């Protein structure tokens, strides 16, 4: 966790802050979702509580806290109560392993009458990241597939046939699209040759460069982002992550026209809100991964970067300001993709279940394979 008290406390604080980030983004996102859907469907949406209806979710949370505790008569109490808690876990654990800023180097400094210099006396290296795991992608894929357990527990624990059907659909859908998700990432792994998120973002700093049989062509005004090297992979990854988050057009697990509310039919009050926090946490992770793999992470085009005065501030202050700027850039991209999630939800209709399975197995999986082969040939030609 760290070498001395300073490092350990900073790491713990970062972890707690990232977890709270996930919790507190939910009210904002629910507000955006409701106002956005109202905007798309030409109505008002919540606009009474506070300015622009921004306090709506705060009021909702208080209301949820004061709801009656309810357990279905034949339900399995342990599974029923554990499911909403477990719904939080994959989002939080995956989000904490994503680097939300570049690594900052803090020079040794004096505080509380003591010199803080790290183990080797050269200062500290921090990134805005809960913990750094060197097999980043594999860890995130593994953790986020734990999400299926929470849905299955909810479906089985509430002993309602609609819940169980929703849970079965959810798990079948999640494992089917996980194949396309995993395979679509192979292309990006071939291009970067690393599993670590930080290294990936560092490789996207320069201007866009294509290689062709050993020769290099540079396009100076475009950044070297993954989308310009692997557009098919980006499309496949984006649509598979919609399915992984159980968002429309893939929200069959809770298809309210057929299954009442799917796996959370028997849930109410704060237990239901915890499922929402889990879902939005999943969306947050998916958006962050999209930004990191295909849209440069915290990078902005290089010519824009050189114009900014923040590069010329020396010392710890400059390092912290730079990291803050990079964090804001990454956050802006994440917010844009979160808006895309919401936008798509209110634009596209839901699939039928057999169409969904066909799309996953018979369309996206073969296309992901094609993507792997094309990327391999592309890199082979580029290097000559």
């Amino acid at each position, binding site marked *: 966790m760290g070498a001395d008290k300073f490092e350990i406390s900073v790491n713990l604080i970062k972890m707690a802050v990232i977890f709270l980030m996930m919790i507190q983004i939910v009210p904002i996102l629910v507000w955006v979702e409701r106002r956005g859907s109202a905007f798309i469907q030409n109505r008002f949406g919540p606009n009474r509580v506070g300015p622009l209806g921004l306090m709506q979710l705060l009021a909702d949370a208080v209301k949820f806290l004061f709801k009656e*505790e309810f357990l279905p008569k034949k339900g399995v109490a342990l599974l029923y109560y554990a499911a909403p808690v477990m719904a*939080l876990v994959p989002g939080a*654990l995956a989000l904490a392993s994503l680097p939300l800023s570049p690594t900052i180097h803090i020079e040794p400094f004096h505080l509380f009458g003591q010199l803080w210099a790290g183990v080797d006396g050269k200062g500290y290296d921090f990134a805005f990241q809960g913990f750094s795991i060197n097999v980043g992608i594999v860890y995130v894929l593994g953790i986020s597939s734990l999400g299926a357990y929470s849905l299955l527990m909810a479906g089985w624990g509430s002993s309602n046939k*609609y819940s169980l059907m929703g849970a079965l659909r959810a798990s079948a859908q999640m494992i089917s699209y996980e194949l396309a998700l995993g395979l679509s990432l192979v292309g990006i792994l071939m291009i970067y040759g690393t599993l670590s998120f930080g290294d990936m973002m560092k490789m996207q700093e320069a201007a866009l460069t294509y290689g062709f049989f050993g020769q290099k062509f540079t396009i100076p005004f475009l950044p070297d982002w993954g989308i310009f090297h692997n557009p098919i992979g980006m499309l496949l990854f984006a649509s598979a992550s919609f399915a992984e988050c159980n968002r429309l057009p893939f929200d069959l697990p809770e298809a309210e026209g057929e299954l009442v509310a799917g796996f959370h039919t028997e849930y109410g009050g704060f*237990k239901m809100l915890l499922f929402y926090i889990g879902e939005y946490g999943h969306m947050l992770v998916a958006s962050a991964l999209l930004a990191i793999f295909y849209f440069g992470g915290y990078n902005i085009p290089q010519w824009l970067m050189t114009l900014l005065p923040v590069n010329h501030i020396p010392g710890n202050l400059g390092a912290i300001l730079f990291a803050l700027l990079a964090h804001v850039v990454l956050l802006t991209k994440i917010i844009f993709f979160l808006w895309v999630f919401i936008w798509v939800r209110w634009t596209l209709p839901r699939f039928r279940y057999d169409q969904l399975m066909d799309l996953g197995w018979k369309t996206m999986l073969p296309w992901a394979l094609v993507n792997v082969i094309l990327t*391999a040939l592309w*890199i082979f030609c580029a290097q000559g």
Partner: protein
Amino acid sequence: MTSVLPVIVLFFLVVAFGAGILFIASFLGPKKSPNPAKDMPYECGIPGTEAPDSKINVKFYLTAILFIIFDIEIIFMYPWAITFLDYIKKGEGAYIMGAMGVFVLLFIFGLFWEVKSKALDWD
């Protein structure tokens, strides 16, 4: 172990947060008031016709088995993808492409056979 420790710490933090919220909510809300309509499994509001523990045919076990096979095949591709660029730079590109070509052919054959034998049809 040291790299897993923060994951475990965060896991317990998250579980404690969720369980704590549920505990507080059960404390603050009104007391339980059982009544037969509330305890019934919810079915759109009309009185339920089926027993709550009636059997449901779990058809997706075949999908799950196929998933395991294909997922392992995909995981095998990861180390190959990571070292791909190194091999190309060493000038052994034809070897690494050929090796994976055989694997991908098997993968395509498996997928084709699966679709042909209607293992993926969901009814």
